[in-house]
């Protein structure tokens, strides 16, 4: 992607982010039951969407890397995993901030919270793996395998955690009215936030991806130079 397009994406996400902030703080009506705390919803949901999308990209890039063997896909997976981890952390943090005034606790083992947390743990492991091994095709394959296995696990996690929680329901205030966006302005604000976060994510992803591509190229060039020097020394 050319740097012009990337710059455009950056400015677009900045502008949309300001619009979203204005909407969330000033324009959208306050939710009747939860009051002011519900406004975190407009950031919480887009973060979750971005985190899940990023982890989807990790798995997809892993499959493509194992299939086609091109380094590009590994760089894409790495970039997506890093950004996904940041947004997944943000989901857990904003969720925690939201849970305290509404449910009365910072954390509860609700099915969605648990699923997100397990996802966070799995991709934390993925990033640890990447950092604990040298930068080589071998690590790229390892990371691809872990990314695929983790993604395969997600549906099983969702089903099992839901079943686990329906048998032992939480003794807390339930999530009533969470999705009851009764005012059309709420829907608009959510959509604008979603767009802002999505473009922000794409911008970050292309930026990090280009950086990793450059690193790979640099690495390869270094190897070629070393090889050429060795050959010159032999002569």
């Amino acid at each position: 992607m050319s740097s012009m397009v990337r710059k455009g994406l950056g400015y677009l996400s900045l502008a949309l982010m300001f619009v979203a902030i204005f909407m969330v703080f000033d324009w959208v009506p306050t939710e009747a039951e939860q009051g002011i705390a519900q406004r975190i919803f407009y950031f919480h949901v887009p973060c979750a969407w971005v985190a899940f999308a990023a982890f989807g990209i990790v798995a997809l890039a892993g499959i493509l890397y194992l299939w086609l063997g091109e380094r590009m896909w590994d760089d894409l997976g790495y970039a997506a995993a890093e950004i996904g981890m940041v947004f997944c952390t943000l989901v857990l943090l904003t969720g925690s901030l939201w849970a305290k005034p509404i449910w009365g606790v910072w954390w509860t083992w609700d099915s969605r919270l648990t699923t997100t947390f397990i996802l966070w743990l799995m991709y934390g492991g993925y990033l640890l793996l990447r950092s604990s091994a040298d930068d080589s095709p071998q690590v790229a394959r390892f990371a691809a395998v872990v990314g695929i296995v983790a993604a395969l696990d997600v549906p099983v996690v969702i089903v099992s955690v839901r079943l686990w929680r329906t048998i032992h329901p939480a003794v807390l205030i339930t999530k009533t009215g969470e999705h009851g966006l009764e005012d059309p302005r709420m829907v608009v604000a959510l959509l604008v936030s979603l767009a802002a976060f999505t473009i922000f994510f794409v911008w970050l992803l292309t930026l990090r991806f280009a950086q990793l591509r450059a690193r790979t190229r640099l690495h390869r060039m270094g190897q070629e130079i070393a090889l050429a020097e060795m050959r010159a020394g032999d002569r």
Partner: protein
Amino acid sequence: MAAFAAILRKDLRLELRSGESTVALLAISLLILVVMVFALDASRARGAESAAGALWVALVFSGMLGATRALLAERDNNCIRGLLLSPIEPSTLYAAKLAAAFIFMAIAEIGSVILMVLFFNLNFDITLIRLAPILALGTLGFAALATLLAAISNRTRMGDLLLPILAVPIFVPALIAGVKASASALGGTPESAIAEWLKILIAFDVLFVTAGYLLFEYVVRED
């Protein structure tokens, strides 16, 4: 199939002569159960639920060490390279290592179940038979996952430290299902309550045995 049998036979013979893995696994299971008895306050927390929980903690953490023994044994003297050079499919190698890990873990679990009954004041009766399919499915899933991931972790700088970090989060759904099903089985609830959990365990096993079988090649390949 002949290659599969040959590798498995070799691993089992090694184990029969030294007894290293199974003894170590049993010892660790014993210690984990002892720790759990103290941690769960032995005077109060008796009964099916805590026993099931303790049993699965023992399974996961002894399995972490045990399921990988069969694979790690090949690292010495670089035996793994010999195996990879021989005309054996990597997936066959995976299946054999998985089978060996399953057998080691299963032996340790028989010991763990006996200890659990003693430590948590349960009875030796028919309910223990109902545990068998649950434990077998959980062990198969764990061995499938750990064999694949151990091949990764033992070739990184962090080494064996990385294995639990990768394996435990992925094992969570099977862990939830296994603990719940075991508690129900020991508590004597009807079979239908367990069926839901067994389905999750079966899905997990099918998914990860297949994934391991297909992906092992990419993990052990050298370049």
